[in-house]
Every structure is written in structure tokens, then in C-alpha cells.
């Protein structure tokens, strides 16, 4: 795509992540190009099987076997993360790039007090005194809205929402440049979800970190993100700023998606649905992967894969409709 400049934080170049399973090769991420700036929040949207979680994991080289990064580069701060050794990656994880997972129950050590967990994390990566680390941990917990008396609680004593806040605190403990959050609010109720999103908005300002928010809920992206990246069948089909996107989405899939979700503010919006089903990633359709379900499909859509086009400034779409 475009060469990285000083403002860029992360750049993915033609990233391919395949899973070698017994049934065949699952092309979970198939040639993704992506750039994001420092301090930007990008919502990575897609349905189950779109490859969004795999993409997030691949940035940190956490893709489980039988998956591996097959091709492409992950450029971060002048380094290609795909070329680093495991030791070097360990220094990056948690410190420069951290990750928040979906289910806080299984991600927190049930035998460790939450305060201690944060302290340990800090002390593993930084050479400071324990008292200093404890103080920082306290401040962090305060930042994420957890009362100081809960420092010594165990995860099971906290509610789902509070555990997720702890996860966020852990992710921010070492002041990373980039945080990847994988469906951080999907397991939470509406009110808690709103509170967590509020928190993330606030922390964005204070910490000024880059945030990739992976979710299937487009509305969540509208609340928090600056830019939105839409994934379908392992590919990035649209990438633009949030306002333009919701005003007028470019890709037919984006369009169809927005028309199929209920909007609580609009009365009597007739929900449309997308015909067909998401494609098989072992044997994706020839040409454009969405063509079998696309109302605008033409002949060439079933033969050749469309290139990604820059429709307007910083609005990218992968569709023949925009290729002249």
C-alpha cells in the first residue's frame, strides 16, 4: 500500500494467515493491507469466520497452531514483527502492544488477587521497586473505575464488568503504544457495555494509545472509533473514517450489513437481510468473495478479485463498483 510515515503506528502488508487443518487449508486472513496512525481508534468489524480475531492475534504472533503467518509483513515502529524471534516478541507483548480478550473470566488468574496481578505484570517488564509498582497499580485501578478497596479481591469476587475493567488496567499497565481489544464488551450487558465504552473513550484521551477494537457489533464502533475496517471472508473490504462510513457505506457488504441491523432510534425501519451464507474459507468463491450474495454483482465479479481502490482521501474499498 503506502509507505509508512512518522505518524503511522502499525502497517500490515499483504498479510496472510492460513490454518492447516485436516479438512483443508483455511485461509483465515488472505492478503490484508492496513495502516493506522498513532492515537487512532480503529474498529475492526466482521462476523464470525471473517478473520478479524485471527488478524488481531497475528499482530502479536499469537495465532495458535495449526495456523501460521504464511506471507506478508507486520510493521511496527520500524520493525517487521513477523521476523522477530520469540524472545524479542515477548518484549513487545504487554509492553508495546497489549491485548484484551473477550472473556475476562478465563483470562484472569483465579488464584491471584487482581492488584497483585497488575503489580506482577509491571515488575516483570520494568525494573522498579515493589512499592512503586503497587502505587502505579492503585492508580491504574482508579483510572479504570475500580474502588481502591478491591485491590485485594480475587477475580471471582468481581462482576463481569469489573473483571473487564481489570483486564483493561492490565493492558494499559505498561503504557503500550497499541492495544488490541477482541470483543471486549460482547459478554457484557448493555449498561455495563456502555460504561466500558465510556471508559475506553476517556482512556483514549489520557493515554493516547492506538486501539484496534475487534467486534461484530457495528454500533459499538460508531460509539468509540475514529475509523472502521470491515472484514469479509478473510479480506478487508472497506476501510474509512467512521462518519463517512455510516453516512454512506461504499462496499455492498457494508451497505447490506447496515441495512440488516435494527436501529433503536429509527422507528419502523424495515430490516433487509443478506441472501446466502458466509463463504467457506477453505474453498472461497472465485473472484470477489462477496459476489454470490451481492445485489450489484456483474460478470467480472465472479472471475477476478477486485483491487483495493482509494475512493476518497483515506477511504479504501475493494469492489469493482469503484474501479474505473
Amino acid at each position, binding site marked *: 500500500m503506502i509507505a509508512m510515515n512518522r505518524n503511522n503506528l502499525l502497517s500490515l502488508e499483504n498479510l496472510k494467515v492460513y490454518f492447516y487443518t485436516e479438512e483443508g487449508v483455511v485461509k483465515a486472513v488472505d492478503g490484508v493491507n492496513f495502516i493506522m496512525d498513532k492515537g487512532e481508534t480503529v474498529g475492526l468489524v466482521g462476523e464470525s469466520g471473517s478473520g478479524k480475531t485471527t488478524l488481531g492475534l497475528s499482530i502479536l504472533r499469537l495465532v495458535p497452531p495449526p495456523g501460521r503467518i504464511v506471507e506478508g509483513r507486520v510493521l511496527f515502529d520500524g520493525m517487521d514483527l513477523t521476523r522477530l524471534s520469540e524472545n524479542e516478541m515477548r518484549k513487545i507483548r504487554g509492553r508495546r502492544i497489549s491485548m484484551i480478550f473477550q472473556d475476562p473470566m478465563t483470562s484472569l488468574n483465579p488464584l491471584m488477587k487482581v492488584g497483585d496481578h497488575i503489580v506482577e505484570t509491571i515488575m516483570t517488564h520494568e525494573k522498579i521497586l515493589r512499592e512503586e509498582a503497587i502505587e502505579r497499580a492503585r492508580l491504574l485501578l482508579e483510572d479504570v473505575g475500580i474502588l481502591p478497596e478491591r485491590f485485594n479481591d480475587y477475580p471471582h469476587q468481581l462482576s463481569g464488568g469489573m473483571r473487564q475493567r481489570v483486564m483493561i488496567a492490565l493492558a494499559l499497565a505498561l503504557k503500550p503504544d497499541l492495544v488490541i481489544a477482541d470483543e471486549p464488551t460482547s459478554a457484557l450487558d448493555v449498561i455495563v457495555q456502555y460504561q466500558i465504552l465510556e471508559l475506553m473513550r476517556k482512556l483514549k484521551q489520557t493515554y493516547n494509545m492506538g486501539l484496534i477494537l475487534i467486534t461484530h457489533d457495528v454500533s459499538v464502533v460508531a460509539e468509540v472509533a475514529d475509523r472502521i475496517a470491515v472484514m469479509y471472508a478473510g479480506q478487508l473490504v472497506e476501510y474509512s473514517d467512521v462518519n463517512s462510513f455510516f453516512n454512506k457505506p461504499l462496499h455492498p457488504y457494508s451497505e447490506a450489513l447496515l441495512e440488516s441491523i435494527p436501529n433503536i432510534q429509527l422507528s419502523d425501519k424495515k*430490516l433487509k437481510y443478506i441472501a446466502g451464507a458466509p463463504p467457506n474459507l477453505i474453498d472461497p468463491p472465485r473472484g470477489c468473495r462477496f459476489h454470490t450474495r451481492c445485489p450489484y454483482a456483474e460478470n467480472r465479479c465472479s472471475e477476478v478479485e477486485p483491487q483495493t481502490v482509494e475512493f476518497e482521501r483515506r477511504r479504501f474499498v475493494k469492489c469493482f463498483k469503484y474501479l474505473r
Partner: protein
Amino acid sequence: MIQVKDLKKYFPVQRGLLERVLSRKVDYIKAVDGVSFEIKKKEIFSLVGESGCGKTTTGRLILRLIDPTSGTIIFKGRDITFLRGEELRRLRKTMQIIFQDPYASLNPRMRIGDAVGHPLEIHGIAEGQEKKRIVFETLKKVGLEPPEKFYNAYPHELSGGQRQRAAIARAIIVNPEFIVADEPISMIDVSLRSKLLELMKQLQEELELTYLFITHDLAVSKYISDKVAIMYLGGIVELGSKKEIFSNPSHPYTIALLSAVPVPDPSVKRKRIDLKGEVPSPINPPSGCRFHTRCPFKEKMCEIEKPYFIKISEDHFVACHKPFSLNINQHYI
């Protein structure tokens, strides 16, 4: 069609042997704590609330999958509160359920055709070739075509959306009058949800069904319901027609919920009600109004007295000492 009066379900908290020996006192989880409402024939009635509010338990109580602790359930004029055994089994022909998890609600060792056709066998409606014919017809109705292919398939060969359709087929095959749909689309992919909702709406018209639609998703509830009841901590806090609830919400909790739902439009700026604290434990619900511990507008009375239902309009009731009025609530929605 359905009348529920002061329905309660208390679950005793499991205690270890030592505890049971040492003390007599038993704690109860007051999952459903005095719920009353009516569902009219051919209505789509939504029960909306966050996890733990008791909506799923209420659905199961109405269907008599569990026994109530107290209260009354009346189905088509008949008191079914303590119905048991053979009579209850026969009642199942007229009331069915669609579960939330399509991956768990179908027997993995039963072919779809057998699973969908089983109710016919149980209630002695059809057998053999006749049964097969009806199953084929029903599979077509829910969009599982060609029916032969799906008849012989096992659940693991189907996608989530297809499995849910099979579950729907199983529910409608005996021509029930009432269906409880317990979060039927929350585990389905986003782009396939509207299709399934459309199917459910279509079937409702075709088969003259009455639905109890349980969901946590207000937007979906707004789309599909005729009537809505908002539940919190085992009780209903607001109840009314879809139009009334969404355009004139009166209970602070309802407004908090509505203002918290994310909207796919970044330009929208709303005023929000921020709730402090967490949902209290259902073992020890707060005194007076169950919501007062988190209500930003609470007053002394709210801690002491339980609010009765105030009638806002013909089909709009709210359980609050100080419900919102029509002008103020517009800022939040």
C-alpha cells in the same frame, strides 16, 4: 391468552453439609419476585432485561418447565400453575419453546428429520409416511430446502442459523398456539439475524401464533414486538405497548437502558442516565423499590415503600414513585 399473576420463583441457595447441620436458615435467590402481566392472542410480547433479571426463568415458568414457588399462571382460561404429569405433557402440544443456543438444543445423535418429527410421535398426531410428509412440509416452511437433504442430516452438519430453523420447525410442527422464544437470535451471526426474525414474524401471521419474546436487545425488541415489559432484578418495572415504551419511557431504568444502547450513527449525541453501582444480589434484594440503590433520582420514599404500578395511559404502566414525564424523557432517547 396468558395471564400471569404475582408469579414468584425462589431458588434455595445450595448449602454444604456442615452448613445444613449447623444452621436452619436458608437463603433464597429471588429470581422472579412477583411478576404480573397479560399476553393477548396473536400478540408478540417482549420480556426485556439484562442478564439475571429473571426473564428466562419467567419464560420457563409460564411453560411449566419449572414449578413456581407461588402465584398463578392461566393459559386460555385454565389455571395451569400446578399442573403435573400426563395433563402437563398433553398441554405441551399447545405451547412450545425455542431456545437461545442452537448448538445445544438439538440432540447431536438424532437426525434432523427425527428430531423435528418427534413431537408428532409423542402426541400421537402422525406416524410413518404421514409423519415424514408433515416434517417435509414444515422443513420447507422454515426455509430448510431441499427437505430430503435436511431430513437425513445430523445437527453438526448444519450451520447455527440452520439449526435454529430446525428448532423452530420442531416447535411449530404440532401447531401450537403459544411459543416462548428465549433469545432466539443472540447466538446467530449478525447478518443472518434479520432473516430469522423475518421468518418468525412470517410464521406468526401464517400460523396465528402468540409469542413471548425474551431478549436483552432493546433494538430487536423494538423491531418485533407489540408489547414490551422491562424487567429488573426479578420484577417488572415498566410495561406497555411498543410505541409507548420507546417514545415515552417513564422508568429511570428503562431510560438508562435506552440511552445505553449503541446506535450505528456516530453523529448522534444523547444525554444519558448513568447508573452507579452494580445490580444487587437477588438473594437480598433492596428494600422498597428494587431499583433504588442505583437510581440517580431516588428519594427517601423509594427506600421504604415498594412502588405500585401507576397507569400512564391505557396500555402503559410503570412501577415508580416518580416516573419521568413526556417532555423530560425526550432528551435521553
